[in-house]
């Protein structure tokens, strides 16, 4: 006998695909609206949501394209539901304008990008990590988003819950930047009992006159009412004052609004940032990694250890805001930092910026066919750099 409570959080141990773990994480986090459009390799999320959401009283709708999907998600979020969409590179590109709208209107929502080989249609079924910068800078104008990077089906579940919590807490779109390998990987996923899952819901205003687009300090978040509850909300992607009135020529109103929506993330960055750290203190060489590539790094660290080399590793579960402090600390400890990524260099530039003169930073790039960077390839780069130091 399955009761309704059990249907929302499927507590127990499962053998799940990453995409399915993501969908289940969303439902466990309270997501009750999903709008999507089929795309490889994210379709399994959409299919699973279509089956599961009605079971928990949620709404699944397949829209006519990805632009409509993100639009419907934002509309539903203002209707009071936790809402998500899932896509891959081409669809993610189509969503960018409205991701900016969600930033500007401070609309909580979760966007999953299961990365595949690009640009354009590229290699639709093959893994890549080429959307790091699109996730950060895809929409125009000054803005901040939060981008999380899972490296296992377990983290597809855990980080999707965290994505909803961060999005509700900071009133900001949160992007889950996974990849085809993690999305299609089957592994053990542990789902805790509901009472062990921490859930955060958006703060409601205490009165009808409370401003919902400002009127708070730089690290605070204004409350968010729902459409239809008597607030006479003015929601607009144009520059607006704290009550939502359009102010499209006033420089001060624009500075105030955009500085606040940027600083609410920047000044809370240390609370948002989440990294996994290995061996930093006594490292001979450093690695900064994320997503599927980090799984090869684990093996490379072990292989290097057998040869007496200690590799310091910072694995980013939060890519944006970029974990500057810990990467700088790594740079202070080592002379070389390697950045393996399945693109021709994206995260490496951020590591370089933060490392400054403290360490020499080098990308290990590999693209095409969804071929992972192997532990052996990482090991050989490690040895090559350490030899350079010896000379």
């Amino acid at each position, binding site marked *: *006998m*399955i009761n*309704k409570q059990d*249907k929302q959080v499927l507590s127990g141990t499962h053998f799940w695909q990453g995409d399915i773990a993501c969908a289940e994480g969303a439902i466990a986090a309270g997501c009750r*609206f999903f*709008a999507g459009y089929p795309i490889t390799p994210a379709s399994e999320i959409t299919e699973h949501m279509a089956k599961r959401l*009605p*079971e928990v*009283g*949620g*709404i699944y*709708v397949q*829209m*006519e*394209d990805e*632009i*409509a*999907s993100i*639009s*419907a*998600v*934002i*509309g*539903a*979020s*203002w*209707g*009071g*539901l936790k*809402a998500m969409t899932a896509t891959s590179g081409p669809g993610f590109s189509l969503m960018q*304008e*409205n991701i900016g*709208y969600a930033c500007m209107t401070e609309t909580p929502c979760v966007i999953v990008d299961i990365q595949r080989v690009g640009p354009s249609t590229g290699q639709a079924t093959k893994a890549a990590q080429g959307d790091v910068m699109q996730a950060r800078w895809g929409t125009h104008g000054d803005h901040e988003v939060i981008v999380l990077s899972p490296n296992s089906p377990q983290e597809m579940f855990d980080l999707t819950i965290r994505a909803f919590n961060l999005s509700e807490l900071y009133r900001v779109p949160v992007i889950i930047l996974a990849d085809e390998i993690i999305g299609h990987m089957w592994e053990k996923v542990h789902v805790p009992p509901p009472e062990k899952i921490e859930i955060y819901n958006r703060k409601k205003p205490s009165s009808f006159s409370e401003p919902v687009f400002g009127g708070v300090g730089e690290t605070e978040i204004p409350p968010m009412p*729902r*459409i*239809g509850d*008597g*607030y*006479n*909300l*003015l*929601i*607009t*992607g*144009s520059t607006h004052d704290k009550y*939502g*009135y*359009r102010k499209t020529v006033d420089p001060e109103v624009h500075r105030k609004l955009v500085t606040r929506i940027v600083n609410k993330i920047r000044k809370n960055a240390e609370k948002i940032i989440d990294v996994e750290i290995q061996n930093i203190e006594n490292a001979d060489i450093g690695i900064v990694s994320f997503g599927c590539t980090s799984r090869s790094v684990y093996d490379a660290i072990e292989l290097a250890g057998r040869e007496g080399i200690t590799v310091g590793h910072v694995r980013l579960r939060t890519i944006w805001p970029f974990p500057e402090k810990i990467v700088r600390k790594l740079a202070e400890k080592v002379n070389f930092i390697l950045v393996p990524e399945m693109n021709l260099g994206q995260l490496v530039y951020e590591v370089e910026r933060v490392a400054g003169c403290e360490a020499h930073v080098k990308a290990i790039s590999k693209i095409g066919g969804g071929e992972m960077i192997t532990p052996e390839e990482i090991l050989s780069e490690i040895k090559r750099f350490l030899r350079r130091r010896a000379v």
Partner: protein
Amino acid sequence: MTNKHFALKFLREEVLPTAFCPGCGNGIVINCFLKALEETGSRDLSNFAFVSGIGCAAWCVSPYFRSDSLHTTHGRPIAFASGLKLARPELNVVVISGDGDLVGIGGNHLIHAARRNIDLFVICINNLNYGMTGGQVGPTTLHGVTTTTTPYGNPEYPFDLVRLVESAGANFVARWTTVHVRQLIRSIKKALKKEGFRFIEVVSQCPTAFGRRIGKPTGIDLMKWFQKQSIHINQAQNVKETEDKIIVGEFADRDRPGFISNIYKIIRLVRENNDKN
């Protein structure tokens, strides 16, 4: 003391007067919509949520209507409204926006919302051009007409919006012009009572960006032209495709179940089956 205008209770008085050009048709459409509410007994907009896109027509509801309004990105109001309606099915969700927004950049959402028969009421204020950006040719601009981007005449042909939306599957479809105030109010009242997708096109005047380039420089000039060109659907049987007539009237009035009742029926069934198992 005189009585206040009936519409003021529905409007944010503090932002009046509107930013619309002298002679613009937006005010007539606002007046007709609010008159329809007044005549059906509404005293405020608390059961409504309004959604609009980008362009002059999108400003009718944001910021002037004293209600919730979602002023979205260009072309997307119907998609935003779909998500909102699904999340809050008890609200009357109304989209008021322009032809460039709903049919140009947003045309895909329009036909799919009509096909889905989602419970939205869409009023498309068709001013025959892109007014806000300075009078460029649009998907509704008549063939041969001079605009800022068709300086030698428009080589394209306009969409017939009502036939497009009707064939896509909407429950209710009508077209009037800003001259047909009483008929428009009647159709709005009818549309408000129905479920499913409801669409009214209102052909409207843009003297500033459009009229003055085609020798009709005032709102009155354009309205006189609309009156002359209009022909009711019942009398339009013999009108040739090539004639520049504006066929007005109600083009569809069906009662297929709306998307909301269909989707909530599925949710109910799935949950009942789960409880049984």
